[in-house]
């Protein structure tokens, strides 16, 4: 009877260790795929490309729902995650760092989170000619 109990305990430890191992692996993968650094980098570049290709008078709605999820997790207000100024697009989804990318289009960009219902997590980018 005692021996059987020992074997069961060993099996349980073996199983628990396996589960811990797999959990760590899955968490690592999820963190890598949905990490703030990765999302900040890709969004800053994509928005910089949008700015580069935009013509004055253009209005663009940008879906930043993924970024909103991450910023909400990190306690950053959605209205503060995007900054477009001095030739740089900056996305900041956590207290640390943030990612900036330079754009070459000399255009005036006004931007704000979309307030329309059903468009939560969207930003509106409005492009206008720079005044001399």
């Amino acid at each position, binding site marked *: 009877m005692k021996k059987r109990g020992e074997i069961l305990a060993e099996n349980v430890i073996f199983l628990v*260790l396996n589960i811990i191992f797999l959990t760590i*692996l899955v968490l690592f993968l999820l963190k890598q*795929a949905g990490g703030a650094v990765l999302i900040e980098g890709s969004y800053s570049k994509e928005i910089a490309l949008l700015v*580069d*290709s935009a013509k004055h008078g253009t209005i663009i709605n940008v879906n930043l729902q993924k970024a909103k999820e991450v910023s909400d997790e990190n306690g950053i207000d959605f209205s503060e995650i995007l900054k477009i100024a001095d030739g740089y697009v900056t996305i900041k989804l956590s207290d640390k760092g943030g990612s900036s990318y330079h754009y070459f*289009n000399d255009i005036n960009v006004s931007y704000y989170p979309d307030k329309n219902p059903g468009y939560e997590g969207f930003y509106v980018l409005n492009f206008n000619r720079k005044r001399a």
Partner: protein
Amino acid sequence: MKLQNKRGDKILSVYWFAILVIVAVGVVLMVNTFYGKGYDVREVEARILAEKVADCVYFGGESNSLLLTPQGTFREDFKDNFLSFCTLNFDPGKEFVRPEYYVEVNFFPDTNLRRSSFVLSEGNLNWKPDCEEKVADRSKLATCVEKEFFMNAPGGAVYLVKILSIVGKVQENV
């Protein structure tokens, strides 16, 4: 027999964990290879830049009136104000940092496609030699895009316009 089985189980579990460790190391290496690489957008960026310059020079079948006079001669002041006339800003806005872009536009008359009659260029010329490099891995070099088209000038002349746009930004994209 039972004791032998127990020892066999232990050996099996040691091997099992060895396999798990190998799998974990493999997954970590693969993930790092995949996500560790920069998201390289320079080619798209260089194409957008070339398109923007092309639209600035020649749009809707008409050349820019600031570039060519009604008689069809090139205006020299366009060279000095190329960036502002084409609403471009290459200034990185940081001290001692050179622009990450270079643009060159050559206008070849259709009567002599070897000799450019007018050249516009702006940006960091140091990136230009990267375009000539013949190496397999170009990730650490600037990205170059060429675009060419024919342009009808006001005086009836036709020009072949060749645009070379270069985007550096190696650190941000690799």
